[in-house]
């Protein structure tokens, strides 16, 4: 299934792109992320605990960055095993365009879910994926676009 979205971020493309590559920013924005460790500048391992309605599942897997084209965008791919619950994998193509002082972030997610979670929750997967994508990019836009804290005089 595919999900698209768009956010306006009050920051330059360079700043947004740097944040998209910042482990601390990604960890703070990935919904339910308990840990995110860098293996290399483009590979990370992640532990994510998600709770959607009655279902709660812990996924462990890896996050890979590819098609890196600063400051225009990249592709972020995640793949996780949730034990008995099943597996989830998905990639988001992120494109940044400048609009005055702001940056328009467009994402295009393609996600697949398999195993038990997909069998019993088929009707809920699209809504869940959309919600998670919105949570991630919403939080990201808020965090990166936030004005810098005012230094005490």
């Amino acid at each position: 299934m595919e999900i698209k979205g768009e956010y306006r971020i009050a920051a330059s493309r360079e700043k947004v792109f740097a944040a998209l590559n910042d482990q601390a920013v990604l960890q703070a924005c990935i919904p339910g992320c308990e840990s995110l460790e860098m293996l290399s500048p483009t590979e990370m391992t992640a532990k994510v605990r998600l709770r959607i309605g009655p279902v709660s599942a812990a996924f462990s897997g890896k996050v890979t960055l590819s098609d890196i084209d600063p400051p225009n965008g990249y592709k972020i791919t995640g793949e996780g095993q949730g034990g008995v619950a099943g597996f989830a994998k998905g990639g988001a193509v992120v494109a940044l365009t400048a609009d005055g002082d702001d940056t328009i972030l467009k994402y295009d997610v393609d996600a697949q879910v398999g195993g038990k979670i997909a069998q019993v929750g088929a009707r809920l997967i699209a809504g869940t994926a959309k919600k998670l994508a919105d949570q991630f990019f919403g939080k990201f836009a808020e965090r990166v676009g936030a004005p810098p804290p005012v230094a005490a005089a």
Partner: protein
Amino acid sequence: MYDFAYHRPKSVADAIALLKGKEEARPMSGGMTLIPTLKQRLARPSDVVDLGDVKELAGIKLEGANVVIGGMTKHAEVATSADVKSHIPALAELAGHIGDPQVRNRGTMGGSVANNDPAADYPAAVVALNATVTTNTGKHAADGFFKGLFETALGEGEIVTSISFPKAEKAAYMKFPNPASRYAMVGVFVAKTASGVRVAVTGAGPCVFRVKAMEEALAKNFSSAAIKDIKVSATDLNSDIHGSAEYRAHLVGVMARRAVDAANK
């Protein structure tokens, strides 16, 4: 099923004490969603706090212009209650068509509303009738209560104690059920109460929503003809093997007109 500690408290205060401070503890009302989830091992709570013995959460009573329904009231009880049938017949009718007889005799109103499944029927009634959700910590207006897919305004250690529905002047609920699960592919609750006309849609999107354009048209002229040209956008609606977003958008119009006609009978 994984192991968990099972509790059966007798009061709301005891239930809250059991839930407090335990991140993986879950309250259970009828268990119609939680138990299948546990059986599939899709959740692993440390504690399950069964509210079945909490007498203060059961029952239906009249309070002035409102019908107040306890959180642990089963769908079958709402469907057959003389008070609900005489003051808000549409709500009794809705309850009588939730799931199957097994679900209606176990599932509860508080559980359904707290779970906020995107295709559940009750959220449409709560929003359309502008009901008030009462919990152990306070009251929530219908409009702010349902926040998104499986998301409500309920905090940790907060359970639905009752829901207060204003009596309706005119109301009806029409749903297009999935033939296997009886979940609403699209369900539309139309109500005219003291606070105005409301149209609430469930099943079509990730969460119950109102159709303001229909509400305005119906406020001027409460007839299905008044809304026949109002189209609902398919953007953000659910699309799955049962139906596309465009199909669901079309169904919203059809169900809304049928509901208005039924309310006028």
